[in-house]
């Protein structure tokens, strides 16, 4: 079977370079690439909206919207699109900024044709690791709550058809208000909460049709909050049942102690002056709640020192900060979590490593954990301090 051509979009305000790129890349790629070019960001966005693009390569220095701004925009709108930054004047600072903002590669423009051939080989290699068609990596980030929120905010009229293993239900949205839900023999809020408690399945957005009756009249914001609360309560009771930990149920110890002869690890309640309690309006999964409340009173692995929480941030996978404590640069931390999530997804391609849970950065006296959950992400930075006084702390 003939392989589908990869669609590669090059964006640069240098029209001569675009022409050269079109010719060279088509020559190197033969029948495997369709090379598309755009002279500015607005044309590029138009092309992206029109159809599938497998790889986007763009100049960092462009008028009106520069490459870093463009990258941020792309990361929000097309998080799974492979993005490569091309520059005439590379710097380590810009390279790190671009990688943090979602670029796969940061490449310096070559001076000769041989250099362009290397770039073609690199880009070709990159496209080989692109996820296949479908929803890989997307379903993890889109929950029913998000879909309903978007439809309600946009004041749409739709029917959300939800199917899971043994469940089939519908939620009716009219002019941005949830007016009816049904699931088997349940109706109204009971059916709505049952559907939103599902952790996996499929959904379709169908054209609106009148429901047989109107069973819901409350505001959609309240309904979604209540459903989230009930779902978290459900997961909490599940966590209390014996069994192996899954995902966030497994809280990484900030400073784990050696197994042999080590004292049992204890978690203490938050103390005055420690991490404040989670904001009352933010509903956190029980495991995150416990970690957040643990604050500085984490296990004491060494006699002369104790761990201290220096910074904490929890955000949604859409980048909304749900809670932060002593976080000097929340946007930077959200960007870091997005980067970790993206890299973990790429790293796992072709390797039987299973689902990603977290990274741990273990320094001499510090520990950072970046954990990606199905619907939230967590950043925690801790340091080890001497019992007598303040110890080392590192990081912005």
């Amino acid at each position: 079977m003939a392989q589908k051509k990869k669609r590669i979009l090059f964006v640069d305000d240098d029209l001569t370079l675009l022409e050269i790129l079109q010719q060279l890349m088509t020559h190197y790629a033969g029948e495997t690439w369709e090379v598309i070019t755009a002279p500015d960001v607005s044309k590029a966005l138009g092309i992206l909206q029109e159809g599938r693009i497998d790889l986007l390569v763009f100049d960092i220095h462009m008028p009106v919207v520069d490459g870093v701004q463009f990258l941020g925009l792309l990361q929000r709108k097309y998080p799974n699109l492979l993005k490569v930054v091309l520059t005439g004047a590379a710097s380590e600072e810009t390279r790190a900024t671009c990688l943090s903002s979602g670029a796969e590669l940061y490449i310096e423009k070559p001076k000769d044709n041989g250099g362009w051939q290397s770039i073609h080989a690199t880009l070709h290699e990159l496209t080989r690791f692109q996820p296949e068609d479908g929803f890989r990596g997307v379903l993890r980030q889109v929950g029913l709550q998000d879909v309903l929120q978007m439809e309600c905010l946009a004041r749409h009229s739709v029917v959300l058809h939800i199917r899971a293993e043994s469940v089939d239900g519908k939620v009716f949205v009219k002019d941005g208000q949830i007016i009816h839900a049904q699931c088997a023999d349940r109706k109204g809020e009971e059916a709505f909460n049952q559907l939103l408690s599902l952790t996996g399945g499929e959904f379709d957005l169908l054209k609106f049709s009148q429901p047989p009756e109107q069973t819901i009249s409350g505001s959609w914001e309240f309904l979604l909050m209540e459903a989230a609360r009930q779902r978290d309560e459900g997961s909490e009771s599940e966590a209390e049942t014996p069994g192996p930990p899954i995902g966030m149920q497994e809280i990484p110890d900030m400073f784990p102690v050696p197994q042999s002869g080590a004292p049992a690890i204890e978690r203490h309640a938050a103390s005055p002056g420690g991490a404040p309690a989670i904001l009352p309006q933010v509903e956190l999964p029980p495991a995150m709640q416990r970690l957040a409340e643990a604050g500085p009173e984490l296990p004491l692995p060494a006699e002369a020192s104790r761990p201290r929480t220096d910074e904490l941030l929890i955000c949604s996978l859409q980048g909304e900060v749900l809670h932060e404590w002593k976080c000097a640069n929340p946007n930077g931390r959200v960007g870091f979590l997005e980067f970790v999530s993206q890299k973990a997804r790429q790293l796992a391609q072709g390797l039987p490593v299973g689902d990603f849970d977290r990274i741990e950065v273990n320094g001499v006296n510090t520990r950072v954990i970046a954990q990606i959950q199905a619907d939230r992400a967590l950043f925690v930075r801790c340091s080890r301090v001497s019992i007598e006084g303040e110890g080392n702390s590192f990081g912005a």
Partner: protein
Amino acid sequence: MSETFAPFVQWLEQAAPFQGGLACAVRSADGHGASRSWVVEYGEDSLEHALRCVADLFQVIHHNRIAPGRVRWVFGAALLHCERRPDGACLGIFTAHPNGEGFDAECLERMFVEFQNAGVPGSVSA
């Protein structure tokens, strides 16, 4: 192959399998890569691709002013332990997950020490 990368390849070729060790890979600061797999599922291309992600992470960690150190990627079925040398070379070692068969932590430590010393004049493994 560059002269600076040769010691890594030599060291990697001699690296002995250890309990729970699945594969390892090295990437130099100038982008050279080499890998060694002890199980068939960890292919060379995927390992070198993984190390590129690891190298990117170290750079972003530095950019975010997070204290440097060993990075552990925790997946459901495996762990990836990584370190970066002062010269920018990165090592990644995949091991089994502790919830499964686990891995020999002493051997892992020894590999990191050898990696840090590889090609350094006067070191044991130079």
